[in-house]
């Protein structure tokens, strides 16, 4: 018998998790806009509640449209499963609260999305979870920050907004050396550009609001489990993750790591985290993200092509002081990016103009195709000034450490024709330069 073929990424982007609707024959994934699902009988109801049968009970816990999306992102990432949640922030929160409680500690890259930084630095300490922020490029920083109470290492595939490339293989190896999982925010790269599990990451999450959905019309998050981490490895992880390895009174004494050898984390996240914190995804949102993912490989290719042209244009422009894109020879992570991101470093990057803060403002205001707003990963090109918006609450010293200055401008390059985008930028730069 010939060796079976594995399905390609592009095909999975269109088909994984879905099949023609058995009830109607609908080819598109139906939007199951129903809060609840009817039981066959009392025994069926009890069996569903007690995880003796597979199926849907209540759309906060699971929903058929969301389940298609969960399988699809799992297939694309090479994981065992996923949970669709209300936002990327909800995904990060769900990952953390599934793994730890008060008295625990996280080591995180200091180059994070401002919202993630807020959660870790300001909110979670109130619940007894502390975070040490480290230079993502310095492995010794990561190592020194690990304490006996550490339960998670966390970074972004591409730091925000400096695009520090996370050395996933080395940080994962360090985490595993200490019996800890590595969680990666893969929003900027998507599985189209990097599959962090192949480099050693254990958990991945996305703000699906960005490139996965791709059109700036929904808010959603996806948390994916590689299924590789051993939560009860003697001498390593054993004893560190009682939420997964000890009986849970809140679900009939279930020991999640015994219930599922590979998906204990997901089980607990669904049976406790989504159940109790309730940050579920709406089926309509899942449908729209699915629509986006269908064209993800095509879109990411075009996003990267456009970005490369714009990066080259800006890097050569006399009024531009610096451009931070990991493919440039001036970027400190160029070699690492070549290894981990051979198909491109995404479509979000920052640059600084030679000018005052007012000139920076004039530049943004004179753009006509680029929209000034707080989002990235839209089909349409976007622009923002991080120091006054996304990173507004970050202290100046921390801003500097994250590579952000008053003049830093962040672009999210869309799918328009690159010539038109360059013309738009060129016009705005001229206007800013004139003062």
């Amino acid at each position, binding site marked *: *018998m010939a060796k079976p073929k594995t399905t390609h990424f592009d095909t999975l982007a269109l088909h*994984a998790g879905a*099949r023609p609707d058995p009830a109607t024959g609908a080819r598109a994934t139906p939007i199951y806009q129903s809060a609840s699902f009817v039981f066959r009988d009392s025994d069926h109801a009890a069996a569903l509640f007690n995880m003796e049968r597979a199926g849907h009970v209540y759309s906060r816990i699971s929903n058929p449209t969301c389940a298609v999306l969960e399988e699809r992102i799992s*297939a694309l990432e090479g994981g065992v499963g996923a949970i669709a949640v209300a936002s990327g922030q909800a995904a990060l929160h769900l990952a953390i609260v599934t793994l730890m409680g008060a008295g625990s500690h996280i080591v995180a890259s200091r180059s994070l999305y401002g919202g993630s930084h807020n959660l870790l630095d300001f909110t979670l300490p109130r619940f007894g979870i502390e975070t040490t922020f480290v230079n993502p490029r310095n492995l010794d920083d990561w190592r020194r920050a690990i304490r006996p109470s550490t339960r998670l290492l966390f970074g972004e595939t591409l730091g925000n907004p400096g695009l520090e490339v996370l050395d996933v293989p080395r940080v994962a190896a360090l985490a595993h050396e200490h019996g800890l999982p590595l969680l990666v925010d893969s929003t900027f790269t998507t599985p189209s550009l990097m599959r962090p599990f192949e480099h050693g990451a254990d958990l991945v999450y996305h703000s699906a609001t960005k490139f996965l959905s791709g059109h700036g019309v929904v808010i959603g998050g996806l948390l994916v489990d590689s299924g590789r981490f051993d939560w009860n490895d003697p001498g390593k992880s054993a004893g560190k993750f009682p939420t997964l390895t000890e009986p849970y009174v809140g679900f009939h004494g279930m*020991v999640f790591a015994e219930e599922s050898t590979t998906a204990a984390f*997901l089980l607990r996240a669904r049976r406790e985290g989504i159940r109790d914190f309730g940050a579920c995804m709406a089926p309509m949102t899942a449908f729209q993200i699915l629509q986006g993912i269908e064209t993800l490989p095509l879109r990411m290719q075009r996003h990267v092509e456009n970005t490369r042209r714009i990066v080259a244009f800006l890097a050569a422009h006399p009024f531009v002081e610096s451009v931070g894109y990991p493919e440039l020879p001036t970027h400190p992570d160029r070699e690492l990016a070549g290894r981990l991101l051979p198909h491109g470093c995404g479509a979000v990057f920052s640059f600084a103009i030679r000018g005052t803060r007012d000139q920076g403002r004039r530049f943004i205001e004179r753009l006509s195709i680029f929209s000034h707003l707080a989002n990235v990963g839209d089909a349409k090109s976007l622009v923002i000034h991080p120091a006054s918006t996304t990173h507004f609450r970050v202290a100046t010293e921390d801003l500097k450490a994250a590579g952000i200055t008053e003049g830093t401008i962040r672009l999210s390059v869309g799918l328009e024709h690159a010539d038109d985008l360059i013309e738009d930028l060129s016009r705005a730069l001229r206007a800013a330069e004139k003062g």
Partner: protein
Amino acid sequence: MQSSVSGRAVYAYTGARAFDPALPTVVFVHGAANDHSVWALQSRYFAHHGRNVLAVDLPGHGRSEGTPLPSVEAIAGWLMALLDTLAIETAALVGHSLGSLAVLDATGRHPGRATRIALLGPSVPMPVSDALLDAAKRDDHAAFEMINGWSFSPADQLGGNRLPGVWMTGNAMRLMERCRPGLLHADLAACNGYATGLAAAENVRCPALLIIGERDQMTLPKNARALAAALSDKRVVTIPDCGHSLMTEAPDAVLDALREFL
């Protein structure tokens, strides 16, 4: 639940219920390169419906110590030894793939110990292709890819899991990847080398249920016909559009068939 056979620790999932000697027992035996977790839904159901459940990890698999046993006969002997250790005189035995052969052989040798047997994805004989055996012998990842490719029906290769949020082939792959070196080859060689299945079937005295996946490419449905013919009291359930990973691909159909039978 922890126990031991021949001084080696044995793990068996019980559905988080304490063993009750007053209740009848159902033993679930997994297939090659798997562990107890492939039975999660079905075993949990019976654990909460008036049975003791022992979903075992075979030696060297999952949480059980030791090295994989070299033959179906050895696994069958180990199963009986486990029942002896736990002072279980009789039990219903349920096995999948390699596990189905172990259940068959154990019942053929000890007809009085099984009250009923359910064989999922059975095949007698159970030949394994040279390509798969060779890859497994080298601990080549290609062996897992072959198994995954042949174990799920074409439709299920693209997902559509009844268990929300779990990518079936990804989960199956990750479970196999946890195998210690040499384990998969030992399991496949045991399947390939088992030659006395029909004789064992002729010795079975209790009712038998065969659950077959219509689209099974690992153990072809036609290879179960001789087995069915050799069993005196049997029932055959064929699940449409289902491959070899029956408990995952058709969890409700499998449970319904087991419920009705057990």
